[in-house]
């Protein structure tokens, strides 16, 4: 059914950051958002919120909902603990009435670099991201060192070619 522009729904768009070791497709993201919204509010409110994933770009995504229900959507996004069985968190960052505004606010530089680090005398393969954040690549084999560290926790750090 085609509606006149003045009769169309008004939407709000929420920019979110996904914290996880994996990269997800919009379909996976939608499933976990829908599960979280239904679990918190039930089918009736979920139908009103009408959540939808508009765009996924690396660890950022834009989620759409009906105007006036963005707080409910944000609460449901905060209550997500895993996506497709992988531990993950979704952090709502900004809300706007247009996708273009959110795209302008989306950080451009999210570069990650592979490197080797020496931590507590153990050489490890790591991924270095913004502001000296370091994640160990192999999980579960180094019991004596934490998985998520910073440059200050390393004894030596050299980047791969």
């Amino acid at each position: 059914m085609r509606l006149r522009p003045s009769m169309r729904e008004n939407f709000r768009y929420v920019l979110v950051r996904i914290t996880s070791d994996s990269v997800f497709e919009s379909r996976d993201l939608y499933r976990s958002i829908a599960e979280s919204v239904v679990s918190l509010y039930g089918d009736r409110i979920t139908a009103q919120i009408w959540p939808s994933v508009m765009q996924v770009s690396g660890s950022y995504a834009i989620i759409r909902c009906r105007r006036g229900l963005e707080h409910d959507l944000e609460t449901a996004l905060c209550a997500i603990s895993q996506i497709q069985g992988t531990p993950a968190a979704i952090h709502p960052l900004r809300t706007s009435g247009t996708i273009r505004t959110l795209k302008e606010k989306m950080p451009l530089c999210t570069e990650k670099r592979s490197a080797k680090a020496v931590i507590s005398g153990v050489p490890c393969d790591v991924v270095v991201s913004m502001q000296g954040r370091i994640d160990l690549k192999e999980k579960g084999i180094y019991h004596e060192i934490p998985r998520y560290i910073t440059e200050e926790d390393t004894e030596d750090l050299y980047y791969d070619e």
Partner: protein
Amino acid sequence: MHVFDGCVFPYPSGTVSIARYARELSSLGFSGCVAASMAPVNRIYDIPVWTARYLTEVPARLLSREAGRAIQVNDLVYVQAGDAGYNRNILTTQGVHVMTNLHTTPKDGFDRYCAQLAAEREIGVDLSVRPLIELRDGARQKVIRRYEEIFTLQNRYEFPIVLSSHAADITHLKSPREMIRLFSLVWKDENLLWESLESICLIKNRTGPVVEI
């Protein structure tokens, strides 16, 4: 405004180093955090990090000794709650700052007498966002009801509430705004929730129990 995450578990209890926690929490908008189960270290992080001794399943007769020992080393003492009698014991023990894990206590584990004691002695009641995120269905409903009871008692007796993430992994961390959103499922007064994020500073700097005149 000092917005603190009431409790995080760094390595070896969790998978994240304390420096990384400090960096992540700083970027999420916190101005400090409390690291539990960790010995104090003389290092400067991105935000102030207070250490806390997290006492779990300590017999009531040993509680006073353990709390006294902990306060000499750590900034704060957290004690895991139990049944009503045990909780009263915690609340009358010198040196205890915060009582945690109230959602796991039996029914009526935290009654109005406990609330009155907590208010008189300025002992914080720690509420974690983790059960609200990780539990589903009936279990989450039970936690929401328990938290609602605690907020109702807080409204009457005005004891300090401490909001915390109880994070053991990087994905468990929540920004102050996210914590407010999640707790607004339980209690609608956002001013109280913001005050609860700052309350750990008041608990740490308390002067002593209030004396009735």
